[in-house]
């Protein structure tokens, strides 16, 4: 048990630190846009969604309609549908007391640690996921709090290159899993297509490029299995 807790904390620690600038930004941006401290904190406590939060704060300041807000938030969050699908078989037979919190904590960051074929199997792996996801939630809320109380005194830290740290962590998590040609091609197709989707500003680009990559991997794998 102690090992699972320690591993959960240590694995998530780099990401907990790397997202600091964006946590601060979520807090300070909300205050700048007329949110009360409570409302600003509740965005991270309840919505807990990084980029969707930042966009929602700006839209709310412009007095966008509730429908616009909900649709925009859905578009940015749609990738989480894929995460739920990917871990459904591992999680669906677990009691709600595990499924509920893990679903709530199922961010990009937690999903990044969910790829192991035995992830979520057995109590220790569930504890691991809960600790990793929970520590990220806590860190995100602490950074938001700092942004709320001190945002006006702090410089913008998002241009210090910490976005590279996030990229480096994801590279560190992806590369060891690239063990055969289908996975390599799947990643290449995802990477190239997301650049194209970004240049044409296609809103579902992340989901679309993931689906393109996944299909590539699937087809190549099926071909390999045949021969």
């Amino acid at each position: 048990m102690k090992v699972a807790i320690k591993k959960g904390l240590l694995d998530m620690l780099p990401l907990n630190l790397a997202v600091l600038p964006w946590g601060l930004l979520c807090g300070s941006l909300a205050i700048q846009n007329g949110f009360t401290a409570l409302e600003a904190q509740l965005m991270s406590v309840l919505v807990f969604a990084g980029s969707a939060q930042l966009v929602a704060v700006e839209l709310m300041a412009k007095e966008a309609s509730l429908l616009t807000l909900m649709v925009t938030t859905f578009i940015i969050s749609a990738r989480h549908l894929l995460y739920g699908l990917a871990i459904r078989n591992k999680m669906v037979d677990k009691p709600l007391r595990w499924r509920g919190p893990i679903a709530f904590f199922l961010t990009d960051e937690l999903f990044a640690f969910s790829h192991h074929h035995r992830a979520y199997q057995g109590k220790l792996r569930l504890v691991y996921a809960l600790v990793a996801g929970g520590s990220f939630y806590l860190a995100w809320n602490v950074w938001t709090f700092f942004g709320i109380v001190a945002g006006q005194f702090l410089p913008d830290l998002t241009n210090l290159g910490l976005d590279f740290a996030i990229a480096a962590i994801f590279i560190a998590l992806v590369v060891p899993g690239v063990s055969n040609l289908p996975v390599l091609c799947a990643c290449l197709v995802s990477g190239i297509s997301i650049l194209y989707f970004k240049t044409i500003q296609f809103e579902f680009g992340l989901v679309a490029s993931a689906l393109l990559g996944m299909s590539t991997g699937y087809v190549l794998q099926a071909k390999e299995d045949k021969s």
Partner: protein
Amino acid sequence: MIVTIVALACVTFATRYLFLAKNLPFTIGPRFQRLLSFSAPCVLTAIWVPIVFMPNGELVTELNNPYLLGALAAIFLAFKFKNLYLTTFGSLIVFYLFF
């Protein structure tokens, strides 16, 4: 305002919880599961690639740039050592040397 925040929270939670709901009447067969087994590497790649290749929102044109050099170092270190901390800190050093 609080009502709006709760509504948005419902949207984000729904996207995460939907396919973990027990009473959703469908099962994922082995073929679909195999397709989904590519989801993590593909999504993570689709997140890190734009950070590295479009750090300012536009495709980078010159190779002598900290994001590209740092990413090359990260790929090399991850491939060689398969260690999260070593890859992260090693490539961060390369990144800040050129930043």
